[in-house]
């Protein structure tokens, strides 16, 4: 079929389509979990660690005396496995003897009102025996650093070896060697986590929560509850933004446990502050880069070490640090590449998925490397990029041949039309 013919047959592609949920959203009728109110409903609140690394002893007796409190759940109330996690099961549903970060959940209070739950939260006694923590991923990699989990702090090491960088650097006329650091970033999706759970007439546990992975949630809830997955249903209502921050479990298992334990619907809505504490962050990264080029600006070698701070839990650290490793060369052909990318545990807030998934941090490094090289060569920043960029047929550092659609040159030329980088470099007027 010719392009025009295909176009005629398409109902959606190339057309301006009104979103299916658009009407419910512009009228305010879209239902997010916080908008669900059920008869006979209870409210849940999470007691969280305020220490980054400590052994704990929990005494809930004073909290249980608060009027209106129906149930206080702790680690011993988890019916199945007291763990969850997207790759490694390194989170506890409720921490039993140890907390590894500020914000680790310790108890889940279920009460007739939010006020009663809050009051009970203040009365639960958590005895902390503080442990040495580690807050710098570079320190955490060293021998003798406090261990966040039993198997050591290095979660993952990803390597790329292509050509021979040592020999290639000897051929380079210019070398840029720089260390870059990026910080933690919060998703701040506009709808804070909320959910409601209940047990239906057939004994099925229903969890209504805004989530990115209802099918993963089902598995995690079932494992923690010690029941088959077909006894758990996850309902995903309107999701008020996620950006990766709703990939890990937050309140789903707590709610399921509470509904099962009380036989009543239980609702939980995080405040903005709790939302910040509860879910993952973007991985802060330390990126040491050495990039070399010949006198014509042709890249010959790159060596990079990336250390990603995944905080107290692995979440998607492996995928994120692999992606960072793959993308650290930027969209440039480099014949000799050596990359070592690590994911490291610390007692910081845990890091996971966030928009770009490891590909967002690295341009800060590889693009500044290009600018530094351009400056050393007295070349404008556009020309050095045009000389080295991926095009059709290029081979990436991981050996992938780019076989179709690599229109980066066109993109840069369009940008140049507006920005006049080359003119600017020569001292001309920028738009």
């Amino acid at each position, binding site marked *: 079929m010719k392009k025009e013919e295909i176009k005629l047959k398409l109902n959606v592609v190339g057309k301006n389509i009104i979103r299916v*949920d658009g009407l419910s959203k*512009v009228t305010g009728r879209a239902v997010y979990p916080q908008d669900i109110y059920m008869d006979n409903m209870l409210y849940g609140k999470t007691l969280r660690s305020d220490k980054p690394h400590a052994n704990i002893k929990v005494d809930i007796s004073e909290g249980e005396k608060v009027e209106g409190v129906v149930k206080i759940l702790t680690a011993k109330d988890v019916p199945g496995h007291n763990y969850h996690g997207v790759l490694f099961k390194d989170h506890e549903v409720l921490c039993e003897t140890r907390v590894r970060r500020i914000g680790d959940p310790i108890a889940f209070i279920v009460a007739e009102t939010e006020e009663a739950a809050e009051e009970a939260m203040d009365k639960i006694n958590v005895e902390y025996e503080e442990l040495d923590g580690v807050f710098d991923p570079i320190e955490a990699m060293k021998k003798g650093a406090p261990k966040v989990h039993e198997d050591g702090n290095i979660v993952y090491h990803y390597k790329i070896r292509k050509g021979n960088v040592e020999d290639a650097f000897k051929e380079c006329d210019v070398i840029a060697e720089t260390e870059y650091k990026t910080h933690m970033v919060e998703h701040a999706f*506009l709808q804070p986590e909320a959910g409601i759970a209940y047990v239906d007439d057939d004994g099925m546990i229903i969890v209504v929560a805004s989530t990115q992975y209802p099918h993963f949630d089902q598995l995690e809830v079932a494992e923690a509850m010690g029941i088959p997955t077909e006894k758990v249903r996850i309902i995903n209502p*309107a999701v008020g933004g996620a950006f990766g921050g709703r990939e890990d479990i937050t309140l789903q298992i707590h709610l399921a446990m509470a509904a099962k334990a009380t036989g009543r619907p239980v609702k939980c809505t995080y405040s*903005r502050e709790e939302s910040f504490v509860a879910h993952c962050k973007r991985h802060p990264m330390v990126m040491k880069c050495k990039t070399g080029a010949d006198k014509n600006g042709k890249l010959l070698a790159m060596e990079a070490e990336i250390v990603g701070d995944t905080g107290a839990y692995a979440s998607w650290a492996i995928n994120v640090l692999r992606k960072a490793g793959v993308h650290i060369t930027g969209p440039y052909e480099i014949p000799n590449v050596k990359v070592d990318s690590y994911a490291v545990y610390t007692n910081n807030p845990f890091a996971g998925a966030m928009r770009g998934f490891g590909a967002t941090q690295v341009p800060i490094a590889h693009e500044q490397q290009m600018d530094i090289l351009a400056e050393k060569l007295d070349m404008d920043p556009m020309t050095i990029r045009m000389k080295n960029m991926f095009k059709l047929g290029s081979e990436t550092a991981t050996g992938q041949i780019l076989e179709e659609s690599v229109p980066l040159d066109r993109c840069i030329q369009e940008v140049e039309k507006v920005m006049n980088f080359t003119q600017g470099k020569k001292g001309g007027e920028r738009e």
Partner: protein
Amino acid sequence: MKEINLTVNGKKHRIKIDENMRLIDLLREKLNLLGTKEGCGEGECGACSIIMDGEVVTSCLVMAFQAESADIITIEGLEKEDGTLHPIQQAFLDEGATQCGFCTPGMILSAKALLDKNPRPTRVEIKEGISGNLCRCTGYNKIVDAIEKAAILLEKGGN
């Protein structure tokens, strides 16, 4: 408990409120107007924006008892009874100015408060008008487009 009188979306109410209640709690829990969203509880995000006596305010920063005798418009008050959308809602829908939707009701009410006072705002004025409303999906351009379009629709004689 205290009893207050107020008008919401043209309807008069006499309601018993708890002294500790905020206006957003009154709207959501007493009047079941769930289109008003709570995103931060500190007046930073604007998701709970409503129009009170003609001015856009964050309902998380108003105590319920302060709304005595107030005239309030929430997102539920914009549609006509026959279900016809308000021109601003229609423009948001047509321009794809809604993504996750959590900011949308507040954004639309800020737009309404702006257009009620300034029927043909510039893009800069529109941006100022919605500067108290965060969109984290970052669809700001489409939102500004929608408000521009709504101004035209309103001028042509919407409601």
